[in-house]
Structures are given as C-alpha cells and as structure tokens.
C-alpha cells in the first residue's frame, strides 16, 4: 500500500471491525462510510452479514456511491422492497445502524432539525430526518460524521432528532429506550465510546496523526480524558488492500 491511510479509511476500518458475522444492518442516510464498512466486514470476516432494512438487500455495486438512494449504488443487489416493508423493518429493528447529524452532544443525541431559534422560527433550519426508529429498535448504532469540530460536537443539541442516551440512564429508561443506542462515535480524528455508568461520551482512541489534546480542542464538551489515550489500531495491510482493491475502486474514501 503506497498511499497513506486517509482519516476516512481509518473510520471505515474501525467500524468494519465492530460488525459481526450473521448480523443484519443498514447504512443510514450518509452512506459512504457505513456502506464501505459493511462491505469490508463482509469481505473479511462476516460473509453472512446481511445488508437489509432499507428496502434493498445485499447490494453489490462496482464502486462506492455517496448515497444509497441511487440505483447504481445497489448495483446487482439480491432483492428490493418498498416503504411498506421498511415500516415492518423499522419496528422489528436491525442489529446495527449508522447515524450522523448537524450537531452531536455529549450523550450521543443527534440534531438534524435546527440550530438556534425554535423549530418553527429557526436560526438555521436543517434537513430533518426520515428514519427515527432504528436508533431505538435496533440493537445498537454508530455515530460517524465525516467532520469533527467544536461546532458539530456540542454539550447539548438544540433539538433531539435522533435520541442517543438522552440525559443519561434515568431519562433513557423513562423514554422507553431499552436497547444499547449509540455504541461508538467514529470521526476522522478519533473513536469515542460512552461511560457505562453516566452514558456520557469519552475519548477511546485517537487516530494516527492526532493527539488527545487536539481532539479535545475540536470538541465542544469534556471528553473525560484520564491518563494515556491509546492510538486507534491502524488498518492492516489486508484490510487496506481489500478496501482499496475490492470496495473503494474509485478512491472515494481518499478524496
């Protein structure tokens, strides 16, 4: 592998490692990174992982596309469904899903509706979101925005579009959120997880080329750095080879 590992490639590899053989999952709206992670897991250790729950099953595109809402991104898939079946999937849930937003807060709550103001008098109106169910009905989900700044990682989001851990265990229980919720937050800089007791986000590892202090400086809340923070395990030769040769044939993850 001549070219250096890109931060986005590092994200993909971290996510791929966490997906298990035999699971069912889907990519969410910003599909580039999640679909690459799913494809990589399928190639390396999870051939029985099913991509499903978003109206298509097991797509086999020739290259990566930014949106899965594009027939070309499905390539030769195994089956197509409609919104009626998506209604059922949304209730039955998946093993894993992916989300990202305009703002993410210390509890992993995600905002896609508005920044500043109110819903009907917003300072800045966001896109909203279609799928609000997989965050609750799926076993777990991943937060994986492709930017990581103090503006999109804030102490408290202005609107909870996608609930993470709300304001912690009690609030989560009161709201009826019984599944794991967000497990990992994977960005171009670092990996975060959540404190088991408080459910607050904390720094887990930093990608090569980043320091914990830098990551903290680009985050709008305390990342609970205590002592040594490990480096994120870089892609292996095998992971990178498969990713570049079989999945990201157009180099979209290095763009």
């Amino acid at each position, binding site marked *: 592998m001549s070219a250096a590992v890109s931060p986005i490639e590092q994200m993909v590899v971290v996510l791929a490692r966490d997906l298990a053989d035999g699971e069912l999952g889907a990519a969410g709206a910003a599909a580039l990174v999640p679909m690459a992670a799913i494809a990589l897991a399928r190639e390396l250790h999870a051939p029985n992982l099913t991509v499903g729950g978003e109206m298509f099953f097991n797509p086999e595109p020739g290259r990566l596309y930014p949106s899965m809402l594009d027939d*070309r991104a499905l390539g030769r898939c195994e089956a197509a469904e409609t919104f009626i079946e998506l209604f059922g999937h949304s209730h039955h849930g998946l093993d894993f899903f992916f989300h990202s937003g305009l703002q993410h807060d210390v509890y992993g709550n995600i905002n896609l509706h508005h920044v500043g103001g109110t819903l009907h008098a917003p300072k800045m109106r966001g896109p909203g979101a279609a799928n609000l169910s997989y*965050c609750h009905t799926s076993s777990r989900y991943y937060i994986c925005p492709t930017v990581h700044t103090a503006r999109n990682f804030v102490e408290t989001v202005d609107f909870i579009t996608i609930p993470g851990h709300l304001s912690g265990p009690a609030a989560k229980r009161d709201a009826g959120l019984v599944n794991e919720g967000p497990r990992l937050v994977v960005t171009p800089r670092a990996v975060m997880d959540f404190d088991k007791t408080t459910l607050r986000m904390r720094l887990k590892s930093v990608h090569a080329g980043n320091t914990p202090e830098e990551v903290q400086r680009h985050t709008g809340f305390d990342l609970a750095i205590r002592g040594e923070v490990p480096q994120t395990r870089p892609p292996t030769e095998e992971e990178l080879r498969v990713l570049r040769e079989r999945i990201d044939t157009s180099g979209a993850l290095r763009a």
Partner: protein
Amino acid sequence: MEGQAKPTRRSKVTGLQDAARLARGALEERPELCLGGLFKQSRPVALVRALLAAGADGLHVYSSPGAGYDVDLMIAAGAVAQVFIPGVTLENRLCPNFRRAVEAGQVTAHALDALTVVGGLMASAHGVPFQPIDALRGSDVLKHNPLLHEIDCPFSGRRIHAVGPIRPRVTFLHAQEADRWGNLRHLSTMVYADQLMARASDMVIASVDRIVPDEVVLDDPSRVTVPSYYVDAVVEVPYGAHPTASFPNYAMDEDHIDAYADLGDAARTGDSTGLDTYIARHVTGPKNQSDYIEAVGGAGYFAVLEAEARNE
C-alpha cells in the same frame, strides 16, 4: 353510423399542460399534493414544473419520506404553504429555498418521521381509520409531529402511537413505462412508496419515459407496479424526471442540481437574480418539454445522463 355507437375503452394518455390543469383544479379543492420517487430518483419534476407554470399556490406538500430539488423549486416559485416531509435535503447540501423560507417563517415545515408518513398512507390505502405505530421513542419530533397521536393500545395496554389516513388530493408519479390505459411499469430497482401512494390518493397523474404497446403489459403482468385502475392520467414526457434520475434510462443530473442550489444560496443571501432567471428559463418559460430539453442543454446533454445510468 347506425344510431348509438358502441362505446370504446378510453385512453388515459394526456398532455403535460392538460395534466397540470387537471391537478390544479383538484388542488384548489384541497391543496394536498404528494410526490413519488425519493430524493433524486424518479421524481415527477416535469409535472411539478407544469403545475408551477399553471400557477398553483398554497400547497401542502407530501412525499415519500425524503425530498429535495422539486420541493425546493416549488418553494422558490412561491407555491408552498406547508411541508409534510420528514427529510428535505439535496443530500450533499441543504435545500436553499426550503431553508430560507422556513427561517423567514414563510413556509411551515412540520417535524415528522417516516413511519408517520408511511403509516398514514397505509391507513388510507387500506381503508382503515388509523395505523398503529410502535417504534418511536425519545425524539423531539414526537413533541411536534402534528399527525401523530398517542393512543391506549387495546392489545398491549401500553401507550403507543397512531396516525390517521393521509389521503393526498393529487399524487404525481414518475415511472419508466405505461400503456395507454395507465398501467405503470417501474423498471428502476427501487420503487419506494409509489405503489402505496397510488393506492392512498384521490387522483394519480403519472409521467413516463415512454408509452408502450398494450402487449408489453399483457406479456408480463407481474411487472406492472401500479394498475391502471389507480391512475387518472398518464403523460409521456421524455426526461420527465430531470434533473432527478429515471433509472435505468438516465441518471440524476448532479451538476444541474448543484448549479441550481448555488443560485438558491445566492438568493438566500440577498441576490435573487440568478434564481429568477433560472425559474424563467426552466419553469415558466418553456412551452413544452422540448423547450425544456433545449433550455437544459439539448439531446447531446441528455445522452451523457443516459450513459451515466448505464455506468459508462
């Protein structure tokens, strides 16, 4: 010529302007318009442009749960009062006119989720008073969603959600093919909510890339996605989904949408001349689809989108 002529089966094929007039009349009774496809795939954009040219306004716009360019264009043209669509985005960037109009308080954009919209269409299609929903928790959307109700579940005893029927007065769809009776054939892999919307709506008007002979339908009835019974009118419109895609025939025109969004962003920050010109050139100006095709770039331009759809 002997007295009463034997009646013959009526064709549902009509022209773009007649279809727009039909829709506009219906929407004056009740302004609920629903659009097929999803985001940049199979959106009935030619029908939307024709409706805008015919002067619709005050619309309540529904869609499958995600929309972008078309809704933004309708807002730019001043035709929309309320948006009932969970996600409004160009995917790679925000919708400029949607954002501007909502921030200015000119358009109400309701906070909704996909299950509410799909469940409401299901209730309408199934003919029942409501659809139960039991997969929504913890989101602030639930505090604002105007269509969602909490009910006591008579089976589980728990509080669950329910949505009443969403019955659009008019639904616009885009399919790849139809016969003259209005039997629609989606040849794209994804059909999204088009079939559901057709069954949920009072009136359905479809644009298609081409009208095919009756035999094409009869030789493969399983391919018909929306039976003629649900369809009121069908219009043959070459590139009728542009700038969205009509796979497998042509891909979405990302460059066109991006250029439009740049004009929208300029208008949002004070300079609306580009956007006004765009609307005059693409919406109100063209007298027919041939004019539109020329305005966009002509046959050679569309050949590129056709090649992209074939992954060339």
